[in-house]
């Protein structure tokens, strides 16, 4: 036991003190805070409304409709205080049309013109109603977002004008055509959380990615540390006083501690940020109503615990496998190829998680929660959607612990012989013999 502690301490201390760890650990929460605050700041950013001139080549009701609609477009949907466009309506009949157009084009994008500068010209004529063609001349035609917004705003106006021409009451038709808007709110433990479906998806996505990268990176850390001990032959000194199993255990727990510390700090930051999102956003000047409009999920303390628990179990499961792979190889180069099976299992876990997003409480999801190598992904993600009944959670933990013990047993059998075997890379048949031999 002393040996396990000594090895654990060594693995933990030498890694925690590296610059890479410190930077990585600090950057994570920083990035999260930025991701959280950036949308608020963007929302608050004072962008001047775009100056759009509606040029009516054949004066009629359509030009007026367009101008009116654009004046009503707002940049923020909640407070409706910041207009998207500054609109001028210019009527220019046939003989004056070209001259007016030329003078407007000359002003387009001309900053020195100040308030007279134009961002875009919308040309409306008689044929617009029939063909639906609207000419837009501007500096921002390269922005798909702005063009889409323009099209979205103007289309109903054309429809409305056509209906009016045909003698149909446009307001009646518009009312009838209005699409339904699905308002999603997550129910958790019999209460409506006020969290949108979008937010739950975002949380599941971020959690899976964190698990994926942490399992992969720290698993490989264990593997390369095994290879280092083998190639530096420090193993020969250690093995006379420390049993291979103690070595393996100390190493996995030590590196696992580093991973848990980092992930814990990250998840903890996420928990604090999301729990106090309203207050925090308020500090940056955003109203509670605006915050509710963002897809910011909530990390509850029990989700935090489930997440770290399944990460720990999954980490021991996979890092033991990585350690066994490392012990079979003689150089970091050799591990590149040999690690593929383990890496594929981790990737499979991630893919399974995506597969069940459509039905997180379905039969497939329930079965996958009981499969050890995907459970570290599946169970916490399901829990993020909606807390699992404790029987299901316990079942998943039990399956995971059993699977973990099996893999650790197998890995330690391979490891104990592998670490002292030099020469060519072990074949599968040799490895099978290592496992069988007393």
């Amino acid at each position, binding site marked *: 036991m002393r*040996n396990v502690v000594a090895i654990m301490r060594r693995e933990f201390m030498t890694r925690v003190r590296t610059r890479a760890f410190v930077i990585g650990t600090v950057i994570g929460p920083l990035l999260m805070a930025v991701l959280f605050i950036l949308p608020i700041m963007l929302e608050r950013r004072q962008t001047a409304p775009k100056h759009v001139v509606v040029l009516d080549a054949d004066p009629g009701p359509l030009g007026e409709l367009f101008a009116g609609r654009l004046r009503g477009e707002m940049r923020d949907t909640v407070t409706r205080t910041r207009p998207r466009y500054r609109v001028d309506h210019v009527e220019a009949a046939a003989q004056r049309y070209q001259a007016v157009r030329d003078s407007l084009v000359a002003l387009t994008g001309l900053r020195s013109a100040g308030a007279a500068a134009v961002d875009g010209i919308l040309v409306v004529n008689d044929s617009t109603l029939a063909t639906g063609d609207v000419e837009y001349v501007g500096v921002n035609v390269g922005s798909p977002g702005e063009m889409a917004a323009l099209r979205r705003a103007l289309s109903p106006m054309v429809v409305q004008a056509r209906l009016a021409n045909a003698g149909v009451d446009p307001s009646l038709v518009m009312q009838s055509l209005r699409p339904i808007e699905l308002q999603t709110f997550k129910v958790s433990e019999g209460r409506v959380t006020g969290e949108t479906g979008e937010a739950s998806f975002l949380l599941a996505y971020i959690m899976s990615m964190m698990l994926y990268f942490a399992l992969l990176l720290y698993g490989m850390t264990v593997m390369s540390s095994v290879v280092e001990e083998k190639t530096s032959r420090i193993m020969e000194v250690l093995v*006379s006083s420390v049993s291979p199993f103690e070595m393996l255990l100390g190493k996995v727990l030590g590196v696992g501690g580093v991973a848990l510390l980092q992930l814990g700090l990250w998840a903890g930051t996420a928990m604090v940020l999301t729990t106090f999102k309203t207050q925090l956003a308020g500090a940056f000047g955003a109203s509670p109503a605006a915050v509710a409009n963002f897809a910011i999920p909530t990390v509850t303390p029990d989700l935090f615990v489930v997440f770290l628990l399944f990460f720990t179990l999954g980490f021991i499961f996979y890092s033991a496998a990585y350690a066994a792979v490392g012990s079979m190889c003689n150089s970091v180069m050799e591990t590149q190829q040999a690690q593929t099976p383990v890496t594929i299992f981790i990737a499979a876990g991630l893919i399974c998680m995506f597969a069940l997003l459509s039905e997180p409480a379905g039969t497939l999801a329930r079965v996958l929660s009981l499969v050890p190598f995907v459970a570290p992904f599946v169970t916490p993600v399901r829990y993020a959607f909606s807390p699992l009944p404790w029987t299901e959670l316990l079942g998943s933990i039990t399956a995971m612990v059993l699977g973990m013990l099996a893999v650790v047993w197998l890995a330690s059998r391979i490891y104990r012989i592998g670490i002292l075997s030099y020469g060519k890379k072990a074949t599968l048949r040799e490895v099978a013999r290592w496992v069988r031999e007393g």
Partner: protein
Amino acid sequence: MSDPVILVDRIAKRFSGHVAVQDLTMAVPRGGIFGLLGPNGAGKTTTIRMIMNILTPDEGRIAVFGRPASRDLSARIGFLPEERGLYKKMGVLEHLVFLGETKGLRRSDARARGRAWLDRLGLDGWADRKVEDLSKGMQQKVQFIGALLHEPELVVLDEPFSGLDPVNAKVMKDVVVDIARGGRTVLFSTHIMDQAERMCDRIVIMARGRKVVDGAVADIKREVGSRHVRLTFTRDRDKARRVLDDRTLVAHVDDNGASAELELADGASGDRLLEALVRAGAGLSHFAVVEPSLESIFISKVGAASAAPVEAAHA
């Protein structure tokens, strides 16, 4: 010899058809310095690895402190392997503390002892540096300290002096001699003969996996007898050639150029050889009948073993 610290009993080890060690029996008595000698590839390192329980012998058995080799004994044994290895990214003192910890030392004890040893071996000032900043010779000394930190009763050193400059080799030699003087046991392997000759009480010489010589250094020399002559030439070195090639006078020569050590042929005497050399006109500054050096014994024995037909290796 009543209770040897290490008892090796008819062990053999084969690696995929190649015989590394065969029918080796030896006993390392308590106290003193025991040398395991042999040319490269003789099986010294394999033998030491089996003693250290890193490898398991295919045949025979090994007892350390009267018990089968096991990890429980590790606190009583210090080991310096042939291929050195340390964690490159660790601090020097921190590394020593870690090694001491695995040998059952308390961290504070290990730290104090580590500092004392670093001072003694001239590495003070390097305690907080990383291992990778040290030269190879320094790293070797750090690992040497790591083997001694827990004051083991038995110290096993595989080629401890290889790659060290004379000054550092002497520092480490003094430590080894000190340990033996304190009543502890040192087993070390080397292929540098005059070093072994100066330090060892007892030796085993191996060649091609087999033992060819075993015993106390003084006994071995006496057994071979005073049939060795050491010569130093001043001039006309080539005139001596015919005399030295005369197999009725000289059994074999270890020719070093300006000097030579030779073994007299059966029936020849030192007088007759001297007479023949003087008559041939060779200029001599030194002529002495001496005890054979370990090196000449080594060369004659290992040469004989190499010449002997090698048994096919059947696994």
